[in-house]
């Protein structure tokens, strides 16, 4: 078997990212100021963003499909890195876990996500998923002296391993059925017809749906999310509520719309109940939370339910709206976590919802930012959250899923209660005590970026929507 040097162009962003992550790991040994390590990570990641447009194509025998679809998702992942690192710098020193490995782990996790997004083979997809997940398990337990951080890490790890088992079982069944693990070859084989209602294929699709539902925290596979989100360091919660979720949607779209593209009638029956349950449980359980990280965990579950509508629609518009929604979600969710991180100071946890009481009196700017992010998460115009939801629901209606969209709108209205309750507490209550905000230039920059984009996409969504549509067209 002759070995031909594969074209490395399409994997250049991943390669550079790997070199960067290894460099950060090494640099941590000699650089004593961890802020410098953080800045190096940001600069390197920004450089990788520049490489994205030039790295299109297929390589390694079709194992890497670097198309517009994966490029858009990779942009979300890299953005997630930059924003997360910006909100982490001050926070890590407050939590006294200012270690350089944190940044390396974030970069490695992101490499895993990037590999998932452009995976053309189920083996690459699985390995990318493991790389992402293993790094995130460690990050969740990064505050070693905090028992809740340990718990978060362990729960995430155990249930993640369980999900990996499902994924591998699904892959092995599909391999037996089609004789290949190449996503496009599976699509070609299944596309020849005669597989509708094939019990083994349906079981395989159920296993894939279960495994990906774990990653995007969809009900009934969401049990890990509230504990993991609450216990993990807040910056890691922000990171894992955006990155792994977007990566989960990237592979969900790739596997279900490409590999199982001809089986849509079969798998939409699996995904629709998951979507409805996810929106229902996420939004209703969020109502009774007292911890804001836990509340945002349930909110994150609910948002996965909305985004599933775009996959269920199965159209190009549906895919584009999922991509846009993941981008919007990255901005508004990291923005909200950025405000929560500001409340954390040396002797104050600041992660209870009651801590927000009267925030507007003493810190009007922080309260105003939180107000905008909460509006966006609710989906109130003129914020990005509204536009994201609007295009998702439109694509599902156009694909003929009016009933599901009506349910989604009802749950979306319910969600207004717990998001706007925070706004009410901030503006209508008297402050209980003096709250010192831990601000830093980096955190300020992250909040400025998220604020600008939340408002900008809310007012002029067409730029990013057109980008998402163009990206979805290459898919």
């Amino acid at each position: 078997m002759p070995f031909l040097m594969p074209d490395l162009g399409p994997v250049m962003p991943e390669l550079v990212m790997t070199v960067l992550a290894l460099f950060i790991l090494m640099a941590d040994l000699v650089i004593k100021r961890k802020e410098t390590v953080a800045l190096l990570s940001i600069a390197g990641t920004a450089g990788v963003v520049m490489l994205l447009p030039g790295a299109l194509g297929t390589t390694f025998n079709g194992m890497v499909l670097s198309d517009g679809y994966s490029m858009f998702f990779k942009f979300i992942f890299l953005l997630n890195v930059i924003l997360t690192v910006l909100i982490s710098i001050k926070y890590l020193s407050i939590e006294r876990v200012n270690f350089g490995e944190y940044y390396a782990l974030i970069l490695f996790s992101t490499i895993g996500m990037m590999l998932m997004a452009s995976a053309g083979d189920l083996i690459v997809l699985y390995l990318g998923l493991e790389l992402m997940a293993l790094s995130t398990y460690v990050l969740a337990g990064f505050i070693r002296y905090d028992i809740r951080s340990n718990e978060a890490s362990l729960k995430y790890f155990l249930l993640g391993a369980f999900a990996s088992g499902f994924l591998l079982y699904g892959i092995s069944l599909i391999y037996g059925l089609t004789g290949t693990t190449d996503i496009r070859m599976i699509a070609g084989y299944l596309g020849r017809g005669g597989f509708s209602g094939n019990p083994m294929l349906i079981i395989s699709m159920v296993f894939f749906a279960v495994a990906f539902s774990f990653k995007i925290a969809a009900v009934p596979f969401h049990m890990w999310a509230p504990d993991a989100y609450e216990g993990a360091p807040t910056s890691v919660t922000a990171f894992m509520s955006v990155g792994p979720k977007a990566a989960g949607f990237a592979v969900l779209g790739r596997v279900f719309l490409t590999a199982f593209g001809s089986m849509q009638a079969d798998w939409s029956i699996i995904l629709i109940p998951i979507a409805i349950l996810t929106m229902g449980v996420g939004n209703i359980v969020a109502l009774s939370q007292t911890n804001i990280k836990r509340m945002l965990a349930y909110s994150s579950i609910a948002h996965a339910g909305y985004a599933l509508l775009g996959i269920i629609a199965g159209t190009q518009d549906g895919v584009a709206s999922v991509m846009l929604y993941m981008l919007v979600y990255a901005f508004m969710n990291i923005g909200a976590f950025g405000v929560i991180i500001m409340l954390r100071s040396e002797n104050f946890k600041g992660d209870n919802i009651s801590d927000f009481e009267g925030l507007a009196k003493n810190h009007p700017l922080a309260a105003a930012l939180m107000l905008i992010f909460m509006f966006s998460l609710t989906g109130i115009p003129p914020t990005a959250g509204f536009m994201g939801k609007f295009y998702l629901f439109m694509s599902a209606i156009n694909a003929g899923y009016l009933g599901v969209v009506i349910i989604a709108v009802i749950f979306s209205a319910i969600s207004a209660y717990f998001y706007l309750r925070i706004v009410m507490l901030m503006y209508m209550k008297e402050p209980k005590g003096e709250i010192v905000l831990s601000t830093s230039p980096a955190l300020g920059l992250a909040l400025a970026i998220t604020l600008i984009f939340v408002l900008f996409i809310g007012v002029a969504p067409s730029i990013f929507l057109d980008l998402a549509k163009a990206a979805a067209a290459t898919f």
Partner: protein
Amino acid sequence: MSMLPQLFFGYFAFAIIVLSLLVITRKNPVHSVMWMLLLFFHIASMYLFLNAEFIAAIQVIVYAGAILVLFLFVVLLLNLKEELESARFVGSWPAAVLISGGIFVGLAASMLSVSLGPKGNFTVDLIQRVTHTKVLGQILYTEYLFPFEIASLVLLIAVVGAIVLAKKRMRSH
């Protein structure tokens, strides 16, 4: 003569199921680990039976040799007396039995209508001629080079993660 492979397969498949059940139902963790050792040897034999001698060797060296020793270390750190008194299963075990039973019935039913996909280049004949180890080595470093390299990153993360979670310094300054 033609019955022999089926007999072998039947024995190993049956033994693997019984041993797995023994592993999860024993109260004493040391017994569980010992049954697991036997289970790993049976799995290795199954691989050998399928002409996969390299995987069989790895199964014995890595799983039986390395991972099981690690398990034993962990078990020895437990308080065995306390462990023996606690209930083996949590209260919701009937639900687990129901779900896994359901999956079993579904899989078993789907086996009846299974249609295997097209066969690849690596026939039993070819593998017996070239040997499994050589074939695996060749394909791993050519066609599957990319996933192979990702696996090395996964291992690196395991090392970094272990150091991060277990090193001496808990807090930075």
